[in-house]
């Protein structure tokens, strides 16, 4: 049913609420007109720029001196080529640039040069053993000479390692908490009674090592060395790994007092060593350096510390695809 519209007399309302305003002719000074013209030009320029550069799939970052660098049968712009380069490896290069600046800041040569030199030597020795000479390795990667290779690749890589070690030293306690590391040796036996007997016999590391060499147990004895929360369960049985925090919190070296039942006919006796994490700090730092995500965690830590910010939306997305923690939103 159509609603009937009532007509309202507004004349009275207008009359009551009418406010007397002194009428004044609106005029603009020359200065104001000039300002308005400037604003209009700015907004028009901005909109034009936005329309020209607007491309939801493109980059906002612009290279200087953009022009058509090639014409003829094909037209190629400098910006187009730049965006192609960004597509190929721009994200990694941006992170590398940021991290290189950070390593230079964090590792003043006065304090760290000898460590950096040592790492450079280690890297170059590995290239030599792999390809005969540093030069062969450098040219195989497309560097024009060893000097450039050293400047652009070897030294930054060495600095990353030194900075990672610094991170491990300075964030040692946090890393211990996050990774719950422990050094363990195990003997696996088929009967719980034998496992219990071994626990009684393993009164010291020497005693446990002797049992590991015993022909009755040697084929099922294993020195895992450092294990952490990141150790894969294909390497370390899940039921042993479940006790990692207990191993890691042991204050003294010794046999873990409980037999770990891995499965039917598999009982594991664990010996935990290097439990003094202050005394063995260098050993821990050295071995933790090889844990899978320590490198990226060190990078994340320093990128955050130095407020790594990416202004280009597309580049940001690509960097996040490498590691979503590289940039804070």
């Amino acid at each position, binding site marked *: 049913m159509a609603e009937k519209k009532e007509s309202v007399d507004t004349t009275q309302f207008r009359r009551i609420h009418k406010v007397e305003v002194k009428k004044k002719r609106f005029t603009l000074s020359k200065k104001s007109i000039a300002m308005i013209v400037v604003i209009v030009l700015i907004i028009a320029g901005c909109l034009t720029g936005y329309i020209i550069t607007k491309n939801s799939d493109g980059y906002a970052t612009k290279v200087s001196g953009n022009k058509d660098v090639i014409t003829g*049968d094909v037209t190629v712009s*400098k910006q187009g*080529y730049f965006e192609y380069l960004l597509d190929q490896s721009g994200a990694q290069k941006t992170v590398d640039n940021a991290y290189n600046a950070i390593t230079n800041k964090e590792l003043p040569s006065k304090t760290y040069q000898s460590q950096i030199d040592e790492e450079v030597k280690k890297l170059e020795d590995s290239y030599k053993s792999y390809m005969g000479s540093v030069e062969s390795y450098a040219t195989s990667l497309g560097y024009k000479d060893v000097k450039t290779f050293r400047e652009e690749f070897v030294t930054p890589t060495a600095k990353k390692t030194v900075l990672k070690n610094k991170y491990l030293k300075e964030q040692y306690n946090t890393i211990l908490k996050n990774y719950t590391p422990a050094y363990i040796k195990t003997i696996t036996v088929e009967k719980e009674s034998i496992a219990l007997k071994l626990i009684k016999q393993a009164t010291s590391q020497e005693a446990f090592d002797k049992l590991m060499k015993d022909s009755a147990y040697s084929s099922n004895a294993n020195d895992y060395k450092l294990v952490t929360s990141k150790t894969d369960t294909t390497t370390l049985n899940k039921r042993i790994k479940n006790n990692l925090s207990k191993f890691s919190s042991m204050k003294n070296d010794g046999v873990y007092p409980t037999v770990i039942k891995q499965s039917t006919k598999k009982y594991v006796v664990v010996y935990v060593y290097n439990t003094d994490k202050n005394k063995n700090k260098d050993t821990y730092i050295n071995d933790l350096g090889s844990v899978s995500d320590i490198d990226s965690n060190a990078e994340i830590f320093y990128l955050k510390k130095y407020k790594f910010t990416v202004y280009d939306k597309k580049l940001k997305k690509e960097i996040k695809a490498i590691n979503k923690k590289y940039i804070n939103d």
Partner: protein
Amino acid sequence: MKTKKITALALSSMLLLSGCGGKTVDGKSIAASTSISNISADTLYDQLSKGTSGKNALFSYVLDQLIDQKFPATDDMKKNAEDTYNQVLNSYTQQYGDEDTAKKQLETALKSSGSYKSIDDYKKRLVYSMQYAEMMKSYIKKHFNTVFDDYYKIANPRKVSIIAVSAADPTNPTADEKANLKEVQDLLKEGQDFGTVAKKYSTDTNTKDAKGSLGIVDSTSSLSDTYGTDVQSKATELKSGETSDVITGSSAFYILHCDTTDKETIKKELKSVDINSPLITYDNYLVYIVFNSYKINYNDKTIKNTLQSFIKEQLKKRSDERKDS
């Protein structure tokens, strides 16, 4: 008062303007920063464009642009790419049961190959490969004699036929499998035509109906994928009219016959250059010659030097390869 308001508006508009193209400092576009320094677009450009990877990237990009501008993607190409993708997806679906799982598996496989970012990227590359083939075809048709002469000299082409006699385990064939093989051998010994025997007795469904013909085989053919490396190497060793001994494959015995190595016969066969022509793929360096056949005007000295020196290097490699062969 009014002037102040306008000034504020102007300032905010200027701020808006600076935000239009990302961050800029001293007129330079900034891609990223840390509290230590800025990373400008120009720094990234300088770093990324130099070295071997920069040269490669420049050539690839200019070639891509040339192909896109001269041989744009057609609806047919897009349809072909879609059909190819659907064929691949179907085979994955048969393997994994349902299409969703198949799509995920295919995407994972494409990404882990390192060549593709996504399924869409794969489809784009398929289209691109057809655009690329069009460019190559266009050049080869115009310079057919030159390209064919080089192909004949370099790739050792010939027409080859094959007979396959299947065997579950060729190293230990059953009595029936042995008998089948012997019958084929006896017929050939009696002077029966190879093609006729192939049509009657070959178990290779790909070639049986074509009297065993593998078509033109050359040193760049990929017979190994289907028949094994021994078949590939033997196929390019046979002289015209020669029949091979029995070759033991992984699921069959094979006998090959070289139908002809005659240059004019092969030339005639390859004259109509299609997308499957071996002339498109036999020479990895042909693309640089094709590229040089286009009119390229350089407006940037660095770009010119980089691109020209890269092409020169590649053509030198091509020339060295021909000296060695």
